């Protein structure tokens, strides 16, 4: 928000391309700014001086070989890394101009604004209704039963699940199929009306049809939310992402408009990876 076109000093991150290729100005509102982010698991460094700007109401895809730090980076954005005792973080992660790692930043408040969808669908072992209604009720977004019902319906509709579950809202969320469970998790995440939704390989456990449903969903959701997704599927990145960042060994090798990146990658490594020649 503080800068329409992000300032990215060349010497700081030479590999990061400037995503100014889109002319739609609204898409360039800055959501998350990351500067010189280093992360260690004990003594092993997993993230190496990352610099990246993530934009509002866009889908940003993080791609890269296994173990390159995509999930680790994603967890930096809602401080889920706090749960891992060995983690040490240096550098700046700024959301809407506020340092998320600052001592006075409440991680609970942060996670209220930065929702997360995990790689493996993990609905609560409660009813479908409770899965969606629990968090908004906890955050005092809704309280009365009618409000809850309205919100649950809206979230499930947005997640494209409503028609399948509207008659069995009180059955356990765990009784749904994998793809439905993942959409339930998305509904759960959007029900608290966050600003950002992090998705860690949301379709990796799903069949092509469920995958397509979720891809369509992302396309729709980006009207309201900033979506940052990890994927191993190049076609998926090309289909759904406005921007793509290529991670390699804890570094961001290249970050650019998806169309540009997939047609004319600036780096050799990116090209190799995208075309499937990597490793």
């Amino acid at each position, binding site marked *: 928000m503080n800068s329409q076109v992000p300032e990215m000093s060349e010497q700081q991150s030479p590999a990061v391309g400037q995503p100014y290729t889109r002319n739609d100005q609204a898409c360039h509102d800055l959501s998350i700014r990351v500067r010189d982010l280093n992360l260690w698991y004990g003594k092993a460094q997993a993230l190496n001086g990352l610099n990246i700007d993530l934009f509002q109401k866009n889908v940003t895809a993080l791609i890269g070989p296994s173990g390159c730090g995509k999930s680790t980076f994603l967890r930096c954005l*809602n401080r*889920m890394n706090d*749960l891992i*005792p060995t983690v040490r973080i240096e550098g700046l992660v700024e959301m809407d101009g506020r340092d998320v790692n600052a001592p006075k930043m409440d991680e*609970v*408040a942060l*996670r*209220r604004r930065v*929702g*997360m969808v*995990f790689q*493996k669908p*993990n*609905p*609560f*072992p409660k009813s479908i209704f409770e899965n969606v209604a*629990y*968090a908004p009720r*906890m*955050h005092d977004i809704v309280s009365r039963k009618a409000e809850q019902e309205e919100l649950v319906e809206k979230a499930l509709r947005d997640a494209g699940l409503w028609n399948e579950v509207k008659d069995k809202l009180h059955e356990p969320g*765990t009784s749904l199929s994998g793809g439905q469970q993942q959409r339930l*998790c998305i509904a*759960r*995440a959007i029900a*608290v009306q966050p600003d950002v939704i992090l998705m860690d390989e949301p379709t990796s456990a799903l069949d092509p049809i469920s995958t397509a449903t979720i891809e369509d969903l992302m396309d729709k959701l980006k009207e309201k939310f900033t979506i940052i997704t990890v994927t191993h599927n190049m076609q998926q990145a090309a289909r759904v992402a406005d921007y793509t960042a290529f991670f390699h060994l804890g570094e961001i090798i290249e970050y650019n408009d998806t169309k540009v990146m997939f047609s004319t990658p600036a780096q050799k490594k990116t090209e190799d990876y995208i075309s499937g020649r990597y490793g």
Partner: protein
Amino acid sequence: MSDSYDQISQQLKGRHRKSTRLKYISMSALALAAAFLLIFFADMLSKGLPAFQQAMINIEINYTEDASTNGRAAVDRDFSTLISRSVVRVIPLQMRNDPSLLGTTQNRWVLADGSVDQYLKGNRVRLDDEEMARIDRLVEEGKVEMQFNSGFFSRGDSKMPELAGILSAVVGTVMTMIVTLAIAFPIGVMTAVYLEEFAPDNRLTQLVEININNLAAIPSILFGLLGLAIFINFFGVPRSSPLVGGMTLALMTLPVIIISTRTALRSVPESIRHAAFGVGCSRWQVVKDHVLPLAMPGIMTGSIIGLAQAMGETAPLIIVGMVAFIPDVTASFTEAATVMPAQVFTWAGEPDRAFVEKTAGGIIVLLAVLISLNAAAVLLRKKFERRW
């Protein structure tokens, strides 16, 4: 190369023999254990089941003027040695409470003396020939018969075997267990929750962990000594009371509950915690709303098993004075009481032969309660077991 298959078979024969042998050894071990169990149960039942039967005599009670001061006068002299002393003892009191009884005569089934009871159950007793003959005659007339011994479940201990019942011990056990559970369950669960969900993994918590595990292996009598030294001598909790007994057993049950709670918490998948943190739960909300409900069946099972263990415990209770002669049902947590295993222990020490069956009967009741508790634990686990 052509004979390699035969060579392998040759070699295998020896191995198969070995595993067959091992199988039979294991099976015979199992059979032996089962046989012991069977013998134990058969012996227990054959000795204990008679305790649930009691000889009763139908006699004529004359509420005369004399009887109002001396109950003995109300019954025929021939019968007075055959009926329980407790019957004649209460007659004056009955008459005082109900003056209209005076001058009436009633036929009533009353408790037979312990020796009659034992004679009818085929045990050797100190009765003279004349008395035995009289009993036989009464049996023929249908004036003496064995009835279900409801008094065993509705009365407290007594020095008269025909009167001795297990109720005061059952009540004592219930009260003691209430105290134990009220102390051990919340403390145990909260400790486990802290260690598992909140505490940093450092030297100190590791030390605490090791000590809790060791605590579970300490001989129970030491907990009795601890209870005596701390609760009775230092804090002045009344001796022999369900309160001190329950507190002592709580010390013993605590590690069991902590360990089983931790296991239950650990079996809750990490992904559920991540999901909860991901929607912005605080640590306590994660525990309260997601982890604890899932772990509850495991926690309950562990607690019930810990409680069952405590219920069968005698040694620490002897130290805190809960092996006492308690004829009346305890009404307060600070009065002297006894518990089922202690009652069994007391009866086992009685010289009167009639108490042998009481001992076995008490054990049967105790075992029945323990088995139902364990069954409840299994059912609970089955009922709430879920996949996620």
